[in-house]
């Protein structure tokens, strides 16, 4: 089994390196095929491992080699395939295989074709490290690795200012969170003496709650960065500057869920600190609604989906925060499928529309892009949580969790968010695929994409359709051997049915409303002047706030630090000290004026000064005063003479 582990882990790396070798060359289809094949290999390996674990096989734990070892610190490259990581591996390899194949079509005409596949595979490799590592340091490698690849891929079209800006923003924001993550790791090390999951978690039982709380908070801040939780969320929407497959893979299905994965992975820790968990849940609920609110009005197709992702991540955190780790993981998985599908569909649309993103310029595309329409609608339905699609099983479960845990406010928030989700999803579908063909005014000629791309997408569509009812049972059985196996059942069947049907109804209504309202894509000026509309379209003014109160001051402060402090204070004082000597020299070297009389005077004056000091010494220091006066007069005199 170890063989499959390594196969799953390293085949993306090999793919990436090979593709990278051709990086600077013009497009070679081979790289796409090669990496896709390797990814497929990884998928197969993961599946084999999954089957192994499902069959109740032993957890596979390997140690490749030592990474860092000094003092008491010992960090190996250790990998573990257990019930949690294998789920993630499946998600990652599956989605990425699909995305790879999809990209062969999508990136068809791009100059950086080879480079793209190299980056993409590298990302998969990092993600695999992240999920498979058996210790925090290894997780951090993957953590930073995916950050790097995200940077590379967001900024893939580096000639675009906005793309590179977004890439940097994403990287730096993630870094802020990574710092917290690092600090959390340090604290873990110094309290437990190890960064290995098993050892550290075992030790947590003996650690006081305050320390654990601190660790929990820091780790969660780390998770917040990767998963783009408020207030570190702005990068995700901007990250949509990258190619769409990237958005599908990284910014929907895998990387952004790493935060959730971390919390799930660290469940023994968060179990001990329910307060932090509650905070996580609350923040998650807030983000869910907050992100959804921005999605309501946005006019950028990809951003809408991005906000939707953000919102769903909020759901996952609610679940994880409330201790329903398996639920969170389940939603993570389900979400990965339909959200990737949604993005890929959006990619098809963009391709058809020459990279146009404003859905108000589209409409009626279902005629031209039937399959895409079907798949996107499917994904949206799943996202909205309509039975029996995947979303229903995972998302409704989270609502139930909130309800069962008596967090009614959270429940209410999530319920409203669910409605908003349905609304904006179908607003989008409606604008793109239905109504009149507004794109004709803009001169677009939409067309369906390659067939093989559609075929590549189909597994995702199928999974979005069936993942819920098909896999839920075996999933729970498998995962709960590792995660806390809490059952979330509403005890009264009446309440259960009221809630389920009620939710479905509300969601359905939202869909209908959205469909009706946006079928004709009328832009309502009145609404646009509305304060809330402005607030939402400007993303609650948060990017503005960051720009004005963080970025700009930092830049200005930097300029001050350089121009004022460094050059004018620090450096100038050094030069000043040196100049004191030089200037003194320049000012006084004229006392050597070449006149013999002056020389003799200096000699006598020296003697006189000594004599004064001597008399002062013998007769008391009153004389010293006199000496000063005389000395002053003399120096003054000399100066005046010199001036003359």
């Amino acid at each position, binding site marked *: 089994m170890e063989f499959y582990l390594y196969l799953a882990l390293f085949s993306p790396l090999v793919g990436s390196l090979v593709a990278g070798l051709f990086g600077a060359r013009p497009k070679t289809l081979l790289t796409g095929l090669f990496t896709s094949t390797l990814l497929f290999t990884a998928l197969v390996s993961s599946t084999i491992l999954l089957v192994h674990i499902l069959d109740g096989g032993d957890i596979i734990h390997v140690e490749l080699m030592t990474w860092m070892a000094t003092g008491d610190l010992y960090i190996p490259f250790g990998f573990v395939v257990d019930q949690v990581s294998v789920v993630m591996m499946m998600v990652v390899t599956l989605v990425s295989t699909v995305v790879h194949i999809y990209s062969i079509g999508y990136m068809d005409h791009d100059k950086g074709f080879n480079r793209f596949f190299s980056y993409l595979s590298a990302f998969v490799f990092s993600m695999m490290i992240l999920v498979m590592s058996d210790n925090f340091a290894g997780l951090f490698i993957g953590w930073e690795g995916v950050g790097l690849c995200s940077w590379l891929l967001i900024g893939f079209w580096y000639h675009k200012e906005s793309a590179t800006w977004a890439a940097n923003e994403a990287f730096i924001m993630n870094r802020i969170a990574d710092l917290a993550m690092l600090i959390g790791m340090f604290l873990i090390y110094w309290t437990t003496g190890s960064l290995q999951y098993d050892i550290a978690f075992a030790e947590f039982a003996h650690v006081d709650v305050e320390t654990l709380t601190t660790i929990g908070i820091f780790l969660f801040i780390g998770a917040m960065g990767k998963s783009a939780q408020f207030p570190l969320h702005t990068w995700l929407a901007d990250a949509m500057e990258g190619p769409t497959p990237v958005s599908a893979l990284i910014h929907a299905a895998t990387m952004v869920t790493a935060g959730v994965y971390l919390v799930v992975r660290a469940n023994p820790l968060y179990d001990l600190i329910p307060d932090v968990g509650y905070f996580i849940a609350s923040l998650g609920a807030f983000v869910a609604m907050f992100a959804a609110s921005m999605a309501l009005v946005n006019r950028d197709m990809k951003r809408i989906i991005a906000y939707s992702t953000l919102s769903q991540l909020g759901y996952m955190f609610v679940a994880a925060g409330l201790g329903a780790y398996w639920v969170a993981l389940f939603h993570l998985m389900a979400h990965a499928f339909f959200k990737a599908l949604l993005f890929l569909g959006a990619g098809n649309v963009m391709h058809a529309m020459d990279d146009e993103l404003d859905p108000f310029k589209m409409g009626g595309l279902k005629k031209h892009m039937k399959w895409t329409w079907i798949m996107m609608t499917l994904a949206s339905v799943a996202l909205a949580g309509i039975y029996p699609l995947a979303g229903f099983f995972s998302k409704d479960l989270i609502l139930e969790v909130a309800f069962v845990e008596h967090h009614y406010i959270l429940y209410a928030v999530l319920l409203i968010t669910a409605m908003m989700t349905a609304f904006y999803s179908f607003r989008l579908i409606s604008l793109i695929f239905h109504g009149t063909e507004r794109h004709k005014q803009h001169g677009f000629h939409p067309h369906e994409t390659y067939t093989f791309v559609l075929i590549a997408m189909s597994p995702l569509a199928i999974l979005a359709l069936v993942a819920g009812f098909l896999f839920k049972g075996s999933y729970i059985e498998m995962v709960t051997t590792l995660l806390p196996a809490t059952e979330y059942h509403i005890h009264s069947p009446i309440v259960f049915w009221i809630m389920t049907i009620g939710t479905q109804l509300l969601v359905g209504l939202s869909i209908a409303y959205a469909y009706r309202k946006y079928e004709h894509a009328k832009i309502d000026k009145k609404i646009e002047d509305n304060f809330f509309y402005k607030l939402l379209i400007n993303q609650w003014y948060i990017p503005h706030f960051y720009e004005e109160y963080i970025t700009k001051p930092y830049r200005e402060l930097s300029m001050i630090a350089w121009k004022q402090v460094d050059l004018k204070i620090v450096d100038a004082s050094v030069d000043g000290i040196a100049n004191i000597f030089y200037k003194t020299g320049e000012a006084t070297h004229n006392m050597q004026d070449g006149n013999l009389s002056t020389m003799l005077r200096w000699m006598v004056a020296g003697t*006189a000064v000594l004599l004064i000091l001597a008399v002062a010494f013998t007769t008391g220091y009153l004389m010293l005063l006199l000496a000063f006066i005389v000395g002053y007069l003399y120096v003054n005199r000399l100066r005046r003479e010199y001036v003359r």
Partner: protein
Amino acid sequence: MFEAIAFYLFAFLTIVMFSVTVFTKQALYALTALAAGMIFISAFYFLLGADFLGAVQIIVYTGAVMALYAFGMMFFDTTRNVKEYGRSPQIIFLLSGMIALLIVIIFVVPIVSENITAIYPVIEGVGNSQAVGMVLFTKYLIPFEVAAVMLLVAMIAGIVLAGKKMDYSLTLMEDEEIKLAEESKEKALS
């Protein structure tokens, strides 16, 4: 009593003479006053029983030194009023006055010491010159000889510096000029 009167008298005279030397604008006055001052100083020597020293003083200073200076003065023809470009005399007086004042302040207090012993005591009944000779040619023979060397050095230096060979400077002449000069000299000799 006699000593006191003599002391004050000669003190006054030397001070006046030397002041004239220092302050006059006439080089000749200065020279004369200096010579006179020197002679008055020898009076102190006689007064203090240092006859030999007194004699030497007169011979050396009023004889040799003054002759030399006079020679020099004639050379420079500075019988005219000397123009001097001195600046800020106040400072001079301030400095010198202060030094004098301070030292005087210190010197007013007599020296108290029981440990002073005369190593070469003045022996009663022995003439000063004799006694001086005794010391000079035993203990101070080496300094005496060195002084002789010093005078030799001074003589050589004086001769060389004032000599004719210094009139042209090899230092300032380029090699070709030196060659030319030497050739012309040889021609002149032959």
